[in-house]
């Protein structure tokens, strides 16, 4: 089952080739934009997106059409659309790939969505490290403007739109939408208290919609083919296609567009996707949706606790809750083979969260530091058996006690690693002398009682 919506026209082999404007047009590019402007009211577009069942591709999975429906239209203030291209979730590089390969598909998505929302200035907030992609997007905007797709009175209509690409400065937290707005306003990226939600008071206090790159890039196909056609792809409430960025111990890392509902097993083993675990080793664990979602041991990555095949859908990956499930998240699919030390891996991610905490809420600011230090000492042979329960205790004190979901995101990887790989943590705690070296043996079974 294959369907290219987002990556249509992208050559898999050519590593750094971009689909230029003329080729994008030749494969149907900007048809949706022409169609929307000449045949659709803004409400038609919103209805099509609602009908499609498209859910936010940044990680939260909130229905895009519903989010658009919240936009406050009663005020005279300008409305803004902000594209979240601050892709920074470890394991996630799908938005980067999409912007690198088909920048015009994102731009067309921004245009159609901005039209639907009555927006005349849209910002694409791209992480600062991807400065060369900012230049590429600026170039694509210039091309699109020259071709008449952007600017004043577009394609003979009354509608005008300007798109601005804005670089970040290196801060994971700016992927959180209210932190992103603070950053775009020229401030530190500290998340805001909600309510008010951005749909009512967002950028410069004006009604604002913030959507992920992949979500916006899905909109042109939906407008051209109809929400029902999009909904036909996928399973249940996981409609359409999803970009999965696969990394770690696999033979074919990269970005793949899958129709929702593909099994995790086929995704890992098929030569169309990951091509199997590298060097013929065995699968140990999978983080299916970016580093913030719970890690799953191999058996729970491939099948749910009830024995059903695990599918790449929001529902299937969440099956079992946090006891035996995880989340589709951003689609940052990280595969680990049996050479991986789960304690070291968890410490690595906890260092990331400690580094990236904005410091606004004390449970997160202090708690992420505690997590990192306790995991560091366990991994480096200075831990004690009490440290394992201490870790769980710290995660409980962070989770749910912060302004934004960063605190949860920092807690879940640790809580799930301890839940599923407790034997490995115990080996570290009871045999500190054997784990002092980075190349220590991997022992997963309980070796002490």
């Amino acid at each position, binding site marked *: 089952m294959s369907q290219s919506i987002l990556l249509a026209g992208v050559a898999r082999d050519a590593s750094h080739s971009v689909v230029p404007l003329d080729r994008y047009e030749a494969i149907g590019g900007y048809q949706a934009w022409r169609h929307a402007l000449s045949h659709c009211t803004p409400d038609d577009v919103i209805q099509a997106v609602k009908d499609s069942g498209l859910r936010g591709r940044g990680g939260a999975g909130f229905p895009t059409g519903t989010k658009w429906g919240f936009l406050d239209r009663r005020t005279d203030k*300008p409305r803004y659309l902000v594209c979240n291209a601050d*892709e*920074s*979730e*470890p*394991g*996630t*590089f799908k*938005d*980067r790939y999409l912007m690198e390969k088909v920048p015009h598909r994102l731009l067309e998505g921004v245009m159609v969505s901005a039209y639907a929302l009555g927006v005349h*200035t849209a910002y694409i907030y791209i*992480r*600062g*490290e*991807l*400065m*060369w992609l900012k230049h590429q997007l600026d170039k694509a905007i210039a091309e699109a403007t020259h071709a008449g797709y952007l600017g004043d009175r577009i394609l003979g209509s009354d509608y005008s739109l300007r798109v*601005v690409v*804005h*670089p*970040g*400065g*290196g*801060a*994971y937290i700016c992927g959180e939408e209210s932190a992103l707005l603070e*950053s*775009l*306003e*020229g*401030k*530190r*990226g500290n998340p805001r208290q909600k309510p008010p939600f951005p749909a009512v008071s967002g950028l*410069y206090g004006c009604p604002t919609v913030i959507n992920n790159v992949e979500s916006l890039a899905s909109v042109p196909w939906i407008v051209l083919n109809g929400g029902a056609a999009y909904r036909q792809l996928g399973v249940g409430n996981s409609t359409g296609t999803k970009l999965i*960025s*696969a*990394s*770690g*111990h696999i033979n074919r*890392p*990269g*970005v793949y567009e899958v129709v929702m509902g593909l099994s995790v097993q086929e995704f890992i083993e098929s030569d169309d996707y990951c091509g199997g675990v590298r060097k013929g080793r065995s699968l140990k664990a999978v*983080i299916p949706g970016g*580093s913030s979602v719970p890690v799953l041991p191999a058996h729970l990555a491939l099948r749910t606790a009830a024995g059903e095949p695990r599918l790449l859908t929001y529902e299937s990956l969440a099956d079992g809750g946090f006891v035996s499930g995880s989340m589709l998240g951003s689609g*940052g699919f*990280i595969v*680990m083979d049996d050479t*991986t030390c789960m304690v*070291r*891996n968890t410490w*690595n*991610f906890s260092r*990331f969260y400690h*580094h*990236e905490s*904005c410091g606004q809420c004390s449970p997160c600011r202090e708690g992420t530091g505690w997590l990192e230090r306790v995991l560091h000492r366990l991994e480096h042979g200075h831990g004690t058996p009490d440290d394992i329960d201490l870790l769980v205790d710290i995660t409980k004190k962070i989770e749910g006690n912060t302004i934004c979901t960063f605190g949860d995101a920092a807690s879940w990887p640790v809580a799930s690693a301890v839940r599923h790989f407790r034997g490995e943590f115990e080996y570290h705690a009871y045999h500190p002398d054997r784990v002092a070296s*980075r190349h220590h043996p991997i022992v997963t079974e309980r070796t002490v009682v």
Partner: protein
Amino acid sequence: MPEFSTTQLEAVQNLLTQYPEGRQKSAILPLLHMAQQTFGGYLSVDTMNYVATLLGMQPVEVYEVATFYTMFHLTPVGTYVLEVCRTGPCALAGAEDTLERIESVLGIKDGETTPDGMFTLKTVECLASCGSAPVIQVGERYVEQVTPDRVPALIDQLRAGGCP
């Protein structure tokens, strides 16, 4: 006091038009990037004060922002800043070995600069290059799949003034 060229000042004016009237503070991140690139690869207090005057902000507001975002260097750096990603997927792909190799070839540790002022070594968190790990950012470029054996040639190439 650092000062942009006339052409750069025109670019600054253009940049300011991208944001609504009275919201010029929005331009601070692009402006700090530009200033860092122009004035020696880092943001001195003088440089930050200059950005403050361009945006009509208090200097302390600029310091607050500059210190929050990790891409801004607040102390002098070498000609090339090697930013080595060490987060999860890069670590799984051997980033720690790559980092050790760089440290041994250059004779410096994370955060240090070589005595000739050529290289600064800095570890960073996820660069969204997990499928082509391990990755090192050098200026605006990503050098991908940098296994330890590729390190000496990369350093030689940079030392000779070549692009990776």
